[in-house]
């Protein structure tokens, strides 16, 4: 058995995360975050969203810079394709969340990652959003995520990384469980 253990370096500050876990156990009010985005319609099915500030640790926070995302629909929808389709942003969010989880869990378990590639696919029957068939839902009929991971670990250890990251993923929870949504508008 190799006594001298190498320290994995995946660029995740696990000590900070574990410290935050401990601190937020003691101060649950600081754990209450609010995530925000704004969006403005441009033209047609094209809109532009901006992500800038959020609330957490008891105060307003800011990203290092404002990030903008163009959302549109492809040309076969008779649109201009100025950006990703909104449903594709869901896949982007899920991949971003799961991969971040994999890196964090790997770091915590001292597993060196060399590459983590995810391929996502979601099925959707357009008869739902087009109102052709009431029995068909608007959204995805399922999402499949395929991970190709090269790491210093056994296949079971890699499977456990992927499983644990799902268990602790916000976006995985959001897409697998119902969420109450309130949409309001200002009075004209």
């Amino acid at each position: 058995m190799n006594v001298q253990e190498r320290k994995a370096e995946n660029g995740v500050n696990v000590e900070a995360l574990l410290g935050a876990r401990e601190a937020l156990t003691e101060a649950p009010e600081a754990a209450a975050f609010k995530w925000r985005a704004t969006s403005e319609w441009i033209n047609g099915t094209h809109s532009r969203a901006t992500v800038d500030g959020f609330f957490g640790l008891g105060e307003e926070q800011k990203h290092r810079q404002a990030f903008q995302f163009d959302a549109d629909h492809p040309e076969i929808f008779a649109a201009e394709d100025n950006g990703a389709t909104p449903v594709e942003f869901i896949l982007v969010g899920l991949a971003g969340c799961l991969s971040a989880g994999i890196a964090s869990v790997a770091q915590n378990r001292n597993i060196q990652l060399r590459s983590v590639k995810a391929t996502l696919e979601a099925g959707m029957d357009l008869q739902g959003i087009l109102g052709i068939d009431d029995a068909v839902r608007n959204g995805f009929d399922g999402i499949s995520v395929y991970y190709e991971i090269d790491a210093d670990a056994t296949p079971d250890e890699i499977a456990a990384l992927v499983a644990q990251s799902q268990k602790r993923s916000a976006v995985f929870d959001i897409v697998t469980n119902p969420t109450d949504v309130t949409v309001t508008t200002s009075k004209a």
Partner: protein
Amino acid sequence: MSIRMQQRPAGIVDVVVIGAGHSGLAMSRALSQRSIEHVVIERGEVANSWRTERWDSLRLLTPNWMSRLPGFEYQGYDPDGYMTVDEVVDFVTGYAGYVAAPIISGTEVTRVTPAADGYRVSTTRGDWLCRAVVAATGAFNVPVIPPVADGVPTSVSQLTAREYRNPAQLDDGAVLVVGASATGLQLAQEIQHSGRQVMLAVGEHVRMPRVYRGRDVQWWMLNSGILDQRIEELDDPQRGRRLPSPQLAGTPGRATLDLNALQAQGIETVGRLAGIRDGKALFSGSLRNVCSLADLKMNRLLDAFDEWAECNGIATDVETAERFPATEIGASPRLGCDLGSEIKTIVWATGFRPDYSWLDVPVFDRKGHLRHDRGVVDAPGLYVLGLPFLRRRKSSFIHGAEDDVRELSSDLFDYLDRTARRPAAAIGGWW
């Protein structure tokens, strides 16, 4: 001073043990061996919750040879079998006689409050004054029902694992069993066998074969040292304490009870019950992942058994190592079902919590959980016994009482020595 405080107490002792289950009785024996004056107050009879709060077909999850208490062992003819509820009652009652515990039965503790030099234990039959209290009232007092239950339509009958006795209690029609611990799986199987279609909602769970390499899985758990694992060895002690009971059943045939077995019997598995909206139950899309987590965890456990067997030179005494098929999940598990038209009954097998509503001492955290360090409660002279992983993984097992009682009673003896009794006259003035 209230009138109540001036009433003559029913008795004055050094220690009041609350609950005459196996833990309370084991503590009583330790106290008797030290000639410490005490009583064991029991709301019903010895082993009360076993007599009144368990379903008919339940058997222990541990084989008979493991059922032992300090100074007392299983003496029956079937060491590899699993005790029925009646047998557990007989076993614990036998122990009460063996240790000649000073039991005050049919007496419910209504309130425990700090008093001069200790505690006042108010009961339905008078108050007791004591220097120390041991709460051995069990961990499974109150069924935990998730908040989503608020949305269940009135046309659906509901009951918890505590009220469930047998399938004859249930209306005809399909049943949704919520929870995939030993309880959920056992009830699901029994109800399905009664001819009612069962749907089982599955969240995180612990999968284990009943028999591994020819030995009961509990034999492996015990001998490899896993059951002796101490709470302070865990990275996440809270998680260890919250772990649901492993999917096991104590049947004479020693059959493995897992989701594959249940699905082969026609039970439909769905994800965790995530919500109820407009009379429709919504199930989480996380079923595959919770099954994958449980499969991986089971395989790590079996790896640990194999490694232990190899290192201890017993690998040849047992059968060869094996691995079990992964949990099968159909192509598209259902994400919802109609309550009322489709499901007629919901059985909540979603766990239990202890009831300390009688404990009027400021020892609870902001979530209402008892503040204690491995059974030593955060108030002088107050102790708790028999909770899952209180000190060791085996703490809530019958055989787990021995080590916990030895350590906690030693702390209790020290406490009684440190706070040596004042002269009776002086105390009398206070009381």
